[in-house]
């Protein structure tokens, strides 16, 4: 009897390209249509040769990355299926903090001295380096 739900789960997983969400491919973020515009503008952005979506939108480390993916995967899936979300999309505290910290993955050297003073909100000014809103 268990084979029936397992079959449904596996087929839906494959049909929705669920496996792609485990990868680093930016195209995966366009799967559910909503972020297509973000994807297209990322492909033309200054960061498209050096970074993928996950570089900025997930923390470093295996566990941090996949826990973040799981939390956002659930929240985004829920929001999109029910249609209950704001358009244009609004980034909230949890994901904004991850994105802000991600700048340091590469740019620590440049902003070392300024950061000695206080925490910086990089994307307050550099909001379009990854993609337009």
């Amino acid at each position, binding site marked *: 009897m268990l084979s029936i739900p397992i079959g449904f*789960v596996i087929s*839906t997983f494959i049909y929705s390209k669920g496996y792609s969400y485990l990868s680093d491919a930016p195209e995966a973020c366009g799967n559910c249509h909503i972020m297509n515009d973000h994807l297209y503008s990322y492909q033309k952005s200054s960061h498209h040769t050096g970074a993928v979506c996950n570089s900025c939108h997930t923390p470093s480390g295996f566990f941090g990355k996949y826990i973040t993916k799981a939390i956002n995967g659930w929240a985004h899936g829920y929001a999109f299926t029910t249609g209950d979300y704001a358009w244009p999309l609004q980034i909230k505290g949890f994901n904004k903090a991850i994105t802000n910290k991600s700048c340091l993955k590469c740019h620590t050297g440049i902003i070392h001295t300024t950061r000695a003073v206080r925490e910086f909100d990089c994307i307050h000014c550099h909001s379009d380096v990854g993609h337009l809103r």
Partner: protein
Amino acid sequence: MKIFRNAPFWVFTVCIVISASCFLLALNILERKNEEKNMHHQVKKIGPLEDNPAIWGASFPLQYEGYLKNVDQDRTRYGGSEALKRIPTEGDPRVIVSQDKLKIDPRLVTMWAGYAFSKDFREERGHAFMLSDQIYTKRQKVGQPGTCINCHASTYKAMMLLGNGDLTQGFYKLNQMPYMEAAKQVKHPVSCIDCHDPENMKLRVTRPAFIEGIKSYKKFMGVDDYDVNKMASVSDMRVFVCAQCHVEYYFKGKDKVLTYPWSKGLTGDAILSYYNDINFKDWTHKLTGAEVIKAQHPEFETYSNGIHARSGVSCVDCHMPYKKVGAMKITDHQINSPMLKVNRACRTCHSIPEDELIERVNLIQDKHTEMKDIVFDALIAFIKKIEEAQGHPDIDKIRKYQRDAQFLLDYVEAENSVGFHAPQESARTLMQSLDYIREGEILLSK
């Protein structure tokens, strides 16, 4: 434990729930994938003169749904309208109207003394009501020309039929009819065909008055023979289709040709100077004898002088912002105040919390209202003084000051953004009005 004795039952239930949810999710995904593939499919051919929005709506149901919502009456801080119940009378079957602006601001009655607007003037409401509200206004008692119908109905079909395929000829014929006869030629309030080409859905200007008006303005700017339907860019069109009607205008000559006074520029004072050059008047002021002009709703002109126009933001960007429906992105065809959809209207560009954006708009509109009230009070006091000084040796010059001051104040008052479209330009126009009042009062006291 009991629960384990029922184990097969629970396993069965859980299996059903999981299978069913996965199945529904897969269906939802299928639906979205299909939406992305087939954004549009025309189910019915739309004829070149089809003015019935329901026929267009069959092929564009989401846009049509928004269009139908134009009956909604919502209030904003200074604008919008309230749906007020009324008991229908013999000449006026409306059961819902908007609030009476003459009661809210009696200064309007003094400013428009002797003109039909001082008899009946209600708050403007959605596109859906444009035709019925005009047919049943008490202003009809003085007998309005057919010209009025230009912007109160879907007139494209009527003009094409009257002109035997020549839009401009049909336009002239419509202008010359009495209003009630012109109203018989039309069926719908503004409809799809007024802005869209049924062949390919591209935006298209259908009002000859705008085609001529923008041509005269472009000539003033140094561009000869401007043909709006051939030369305007897509983003220009997202302004121009609205500017077919949301403008200052007058009825030229005996034939009552609807004309936009733009050949000297798009500011209040440029338009006033145009009217002064041709000695145009709408009526003679009942209290003072001044030959005065009624300003209409110069939204396009005012917007053109504002920061959003300079930044290339169109009317549609804020009043009909994109919205997501499933996997599709469509233009919102419910046209109303951006303050009723701040996230979509403003936050596409301004990454600032919604509350803060609303506060910014409130700040602009509060200050604007304060300035407008100062000038309006001064104008009413000026009118009262002129009324009592009819024997003054310089009465004609004083009346001219009233004419100029009144037009500029009315120009700002009648504009429907409460200053937001161009705060500084509106303030400048108010300042000029105040200056005319000041000069007039100096002359009065001599």
